[in-house]
């Protein structure tokens, strides 16, 4: 009897051992064949201490334009966007939402007089926009492509107007119930004291039809400040910490190459993952696409991008310098790849920073996998930024900034034609910061500037003296 019991116990132990062995075999195969590091199973410190940005904070318009009629405009403060979203939300609560295509003339007739419109400088579909903000949608929205402008005018209170610059089409969404929020917002913004803008065509007359608007006068608190590029490459420990955030703490199967000029390269396998920490502080990360993650949509890819950026320094300089990011550009199915290339810009004190060399954060997502990441952040002199925050000065007249740089446009930038012809080609005029520098320059001054955009070219002029600072050809 006892012998039988012992035999049973031994058999049971054997069975348990077999199960354990089998599980161990499966796990080991999973780790080795699945290309998974044990590090991946535990959260690193850097991952535990970051907050990923909400997509909503990035899907914001570049401008909110208030039309006053007679080609005069105001720009609403950026914080008014949340109120506009509430208005859009109320608008879409209507029981019936009818979508129809309209003509450019109809769109302009409504927008020309008392109206409000948000202008986006990247492509985003209406459905994705509504999804990101939790706004009600209908299948009819699928007829509308991407939104470049979202507008509302008091002339047609039952309509929400949409402009799709990609397809050059105009739409309106008609509601049957009453929505008052957008109207109230528009009324309050019209009454608010803020600079008046006119179209370039209005200042120049005779044949200039450009509808880009510039202010008559502008009081601004933009002031120059000094910056340093992040200089990890000078600190071995810092470089190592950065590399750990990409490859895990143990550096399993990682090769480290130090080039003569100080650039450090970390490589996993035969180049499946490569991290380059350049001497000028620029970090580049490349990863081979595994092609196993399946296709991801716009918002999912953006979320993946934000998660990745969050774990790798976020939008902060290494000394704690904080910037407010914005989505500057989105390329869909770039360079023949299926996916998204997101370019992020940075803001400081509500003003955008324009870089003569490369945009600070570029990330590519292919099939929901990060395949490229470029980070080029600077640490700014916080004292310089803070101490003059409340000092307002009058900027150089925008129209005279253009007029007085006519010879610069022609002689330095190689543009041809009369001043009026060149003015007709302008696609943006904005005040902000300009960082004009050479590729390897590690410190300098961000200048308060007028930024003038043409198709494929961007020029910078001192905001207070109008002296040319430089220009860049946009590829």
């Amino acid at each position, binding site marked *: 009897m006892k012998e039988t019991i012992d035999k049973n116990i031994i058999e049971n132990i054997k069975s348990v051992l077999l199960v354990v062995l089998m599980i161990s075999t499966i796990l080991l195969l999973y780790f080795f064949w699945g290309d998974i590091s044990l590090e991946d199973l535990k959260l690193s410190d850097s991952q535990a201490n970051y907050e990923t940005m909400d997509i909503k904070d990035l899907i914001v318009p570049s401008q909110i334009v208030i039309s006053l*009629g*007679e080609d*005069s405009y105001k720009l609403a403060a950026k914080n008014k966007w949340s109120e506009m979203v509430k208005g859009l939300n109320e608008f879409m609560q209507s029981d*019936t*939402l*009818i*979508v*129809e*295509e*309209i*003509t450019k003339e*109809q769109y302009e*007739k*409504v927008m020309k*007089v*008392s109206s409000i419109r948000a202008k986006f400088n990247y492509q985003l579909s209406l459905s994705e926009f509504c999804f990101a903000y939790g706004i009600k949608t*209908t*299948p*009819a929205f*699928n007829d509308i492509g991407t939104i470049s402008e979202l507008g509302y005018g*008091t*002339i*047609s*209170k*039952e*309509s929400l107007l949409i402009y799709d610059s990609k397809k050059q089409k105009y739409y*309106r969404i*008609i509601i049957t119930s009453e929505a008052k929020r957008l109207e109230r917002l528009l009324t309050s913004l019209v009454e608010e004291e803020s600079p*008046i803008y*006119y179209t370039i065509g*209005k*200042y*120049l*007359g*005779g044949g200039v039809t450009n509808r880009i608007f510039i202010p*008559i006068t502008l009081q601004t608190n933009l002031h120059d400040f000094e910056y340093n590029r992040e200089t990890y490459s000078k600190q071995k420990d810092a470089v190592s910490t950065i590399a750990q955030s990409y490859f895990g703490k143990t550096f399993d199967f990682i090769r480290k190459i130090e080039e003569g000029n100080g650039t450090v390269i970390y490589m996993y396998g035969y180049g499946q993952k490569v991290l380059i920490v350049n001497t000028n502080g620029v970090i580049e990360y490349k990863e081979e696409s595994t092609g196993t993650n399946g296709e991801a949509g716009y918002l999912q890819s953006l979320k993946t991008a934000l998660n990745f950026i969050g774990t790798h320094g976020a939008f902060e300089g290494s000394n704690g310098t904080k910037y407010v990011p914005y989505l500057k550009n989105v390329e869909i199915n770039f360079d023949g790849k299926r996916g998204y290339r997101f370019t992020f810009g940075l803001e400081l004190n509500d003003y955008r920073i324009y870089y003569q060399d490369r945009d600070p954060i570029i990330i590519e997502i292919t099939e929901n996998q990060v395949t490229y990441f470029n980070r080029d952040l600077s640490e700014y002199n916080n004292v310089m930024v803070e101490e003059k925050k409340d000092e307002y000065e009058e900027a150089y*007249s925008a*129209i*005279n900034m253009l*007029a*007085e740089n*006519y010879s610069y446009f022609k002689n330095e930038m190689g543009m041809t034609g009369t*001043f009026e012809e060149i003015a007709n080609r302008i696609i943006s005029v904005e005040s902000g910061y300009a960082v004009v520098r050479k590729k390897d320059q590690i410190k300098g001054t961000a200048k308060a500037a007028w930024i003038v955009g043409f198709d494929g070219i961007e020029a910078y002029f001192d905001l207070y003296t109008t002296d040319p600072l430089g220009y860049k050809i946009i590829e």
Partner: protein
Amino acid sequence: MRKYMIAVLLIVMMLLSTVVSFAASDSNVTIVNPTAGSTVYSSNLLVSVKVTQPKTIRVKVTEEKKKINDNYYSTTIEEIQKAEQAREAGKTASTFVSIPVEEADTYVSQNYLNFYTKRFEKVTPGTYKIRVETLLNSQVIYSSECLVMMKEKPVETTAAKIFSSTQSGATQFLQNLLKSIFGN
């Protein structure tokens, strides 16, 4: 004696040419906005003057009123132009007075391309004259002017007028309804 006569003649000719230039407008100074004879439906007026040489200019904006006895009345561009033509033909014409909207502005352009720009706010309906004078040593050497009519904003065109040519709401509603039932 003959030499003196020629010298006097030359001086008189020079003086006369100056008189002519007083009346002439400066080819390097152009009123770009508002367009002469136009009507602006707004209570604000943007004045834009293009200057293509280093110059000093003075810009005056006045409201034109018709004077009858000691009373001032609103007038029109046509009325002012007709009165000018009548005066040129030696006929009697109505009297007009210019009431300054603001003190005249003096603007110095130091480049070969500059713009004087100013927005005049709370402009009441009426006929306005924009006069631009080119100054040299504080003397007016050229001048040009333009008349503009300011009117109140008209009642905004209704949405029905704008969207009348597009598809009817009912048809569109049906289309959308079908789409929501059967998808795209």
